[in-house]
């Protein structure tokens, strides 16, 4: 799999492919017979995000953190309340309907549940052909040839052309969704939990395919997921969201080797480790639950649950601060240093004597 190891690129003034600034998406809460607005759900509440060309940028967070709303806003399914989304330097809100339509072929999406994203009444061939018929001038014959070659690209034979979605397994359906997403040669593909509904052995195959497709089609991925293990194995960059905000952004290895934000640390340490020798003693268990996005806490959104919060954390939401390649919205990074298992878990230097992995035998 290709990784964007060219970390110097982040220093270069090169234009990011996708540049999001201060993005907000609020939903009104309306109550009573007059449908008066009684509150606001701040689903996305000021997100900054840079995605460089060739990145696999993972957006992680738990239910209600706003990651799906962010994706919908990026895709243009939702109009932002405020803030800007620039794609290849062009502000999306400044585009005419015609231009936006054109741009739609540049940005595609693959959803979590392939079964519900594929029309059950259409054959696989029709499903993949649809965007080609809508957005290109290709003849039917050309479209058919393209569909067969797309099927081949995602590892499905031409005999799948006439089949229906229900005849396919979940992994095969996801391959069809991927084929449809790449049919118009997009630049950016948004992946919404692309492997969450799949079995583990199918998951790894699907990720491998996504890696191959990315190289072949020269793609950039923005992937929303809650599965941090997949992120570590697949992504190049990670943004962690909490309650409508990105609170930490870093290259993937920096994020997992040296997470800065206390929430990021808690999130990583909550993932069950497939190793019975793993010592979970220093894992962080967070008190309380995520507050309602209609009534977020003052200051840093995480401070009521934060193990190292100080008085001033409730006063102002910190701006991004750079720590090496990591950007984090936290003023207690030094105090959070000793938190969690990551600091003590330095396997490469001191592998525990009892630690064996399947590869060892």
């Amino acid at each position: 799999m290709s990784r964007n190891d060219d970390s110097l690129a982040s220093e270069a003034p090169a234009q990011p492919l996708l540049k999001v600034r201060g993005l907000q998406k609020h939903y009104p809460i309306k109550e009573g017979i007059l449908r008066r607005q009684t509150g606001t759900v701040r689903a996305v509440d000021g997100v900054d995000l840079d995605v460089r060309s060739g990145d696999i940028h993972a957006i992680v967070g738990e239910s209600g953190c706003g990651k799906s709303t962010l994706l919908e806003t990026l895709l243009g399914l939702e109009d932002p309340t405020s803030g800007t989304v620039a794609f290849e330097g062009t502000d999306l809100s400044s585009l005419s309907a015609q231009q936006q339509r054109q741009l739609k072929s540049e940005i595609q999406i693959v959803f979590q549940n392939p079964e519900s994203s594929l029309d059950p009444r259409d054959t696989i061939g029709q499903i993949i052909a649809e965007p080609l018929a809508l957005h290109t001038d290709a003849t039917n014959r050309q479209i058919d040839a393209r569909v067969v070659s797309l099927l081949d690209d995602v590892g499905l034979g031409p005999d799948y052309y006439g089949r229906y979605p229900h005849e396919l397994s979940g992994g095969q359906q996801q391959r069809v969704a991927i084929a449809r997403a790449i049919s118009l040669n997009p630049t950016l593909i948004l992946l919404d939990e692309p492997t969450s509904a799949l079995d583990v052995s199918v998951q790894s195959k699907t990720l491998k395919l996504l890696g191959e497709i990315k190289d072949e089609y020269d793609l950039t991925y923005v992937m929303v997921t809650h599965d941090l293990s997949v992120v570590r194995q697949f992504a190049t960059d990670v943004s962690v969201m909490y309650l409508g905000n990105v609170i930490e952004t870093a290259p993937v290895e920096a994020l997992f080797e040296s997470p800065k934000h206390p929430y990021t640390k808690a999130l990583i340490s909550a993932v069950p480790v497939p190793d019975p020798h793993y010592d979970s003693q220093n894992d962080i268990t967070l008190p309380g639950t995520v507050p309602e996005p209609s009534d977020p806490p003052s200051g840093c959104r995480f401070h009521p649950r934060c193990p190292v919060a100080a008085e001033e954390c409730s006063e102002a939401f910190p701006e991004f601060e750079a720590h090496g390649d990591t950007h984090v919205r936290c003023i207690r990074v030094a105090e959070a240093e000793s938190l969690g298992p990551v600091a003590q878990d330095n396997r490469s230097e001191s592998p525990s004597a009892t630690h064996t992995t399947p590869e060892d035998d």
Partner: protein
Amino acid sequence: MSDPVLEIRDLETAFDTSAGTVEALRGVNLTVGAGERVGLVGESGSGKSVTAQSILRLIDSPGEIANGSITLNGRDLLGLSSREMQQVRGRDVTMIFQDPSTSLDPVYSVRSQMVETIGHNRDVPDSEAEEIARNYLDLVDMPNPDRVLDSYPHELSGGMKQRVSIAMTLGFDPDLIIADEPTTALDVTVQKKVMEIFKDVISEEDLSVLWITHNLGVVAEFCDKVAVMYAGEIVEYGSVYDIFDRPTHPYTRELLRTIPNINRPAEELRVIEGSVPHMLDPPSGCAFHPRCPDAEPECRTMRPEQVDGDHHEASCLVHDATEQ
């Protein structure tokens, strides 16, 4: 080991469909000892949920338990009348589901549901049942049991609902808990909390648990013993250390190599070639042979012996667990 709580022998469950017979379970042996936490892992269609349904005798027509025995604390469950079985479910064996909403009735308050079911299962008056309910809500770390008792399911978050359903299950004082992916639908930080609470309560109450999951991380953190299922069979059984340190069956090995590990830097993604067989027409010999990197010619024709389900063993003609 002391007398097992649950003992399954040669269990075969099949479903008659218009296309033919689906052999969902093909001779399963499994033992759950007192106070043991046994993980049943496998991918979709491997038979792990059918195993749970068979234990509870919830296999409906056209499905049928065709062969074998299931013994709970020495009692043959397959010989019980449906009325007797009704009492076993809930009183002796209870199940926690992936989606807690399915075990909570949306139109009744948590109080009336917990009091009624606990009272019924334990044969105690309402006041005592409510006291038990409050105790267990406290045990699963619900900050304000009285407020929870007054609430309706929709007023609770997913993690709280799952804790209520765990508390309710514990209130039944069962001999065996079958947990079917109880934390899969929860966020990771919530999952962690629920798992820690569940683990504490289980050791405190010395309960036996059969934990069905596809998540090997959850298994490593929660279980003492692991049974790996593939195509309706347990292909390997052993302690959690046996399975993770000395995996013997090629499927177990491949599965462990395939799962992404959050504690390891990215490496080349590994995949298991081929796909899970359809149980209408399982492969001859060892069901894993078409995908097995170590398959020998005899694997195509000879079916390996099933594991006993009480010590580290792999159902494989090529590899022997004792040589690991």
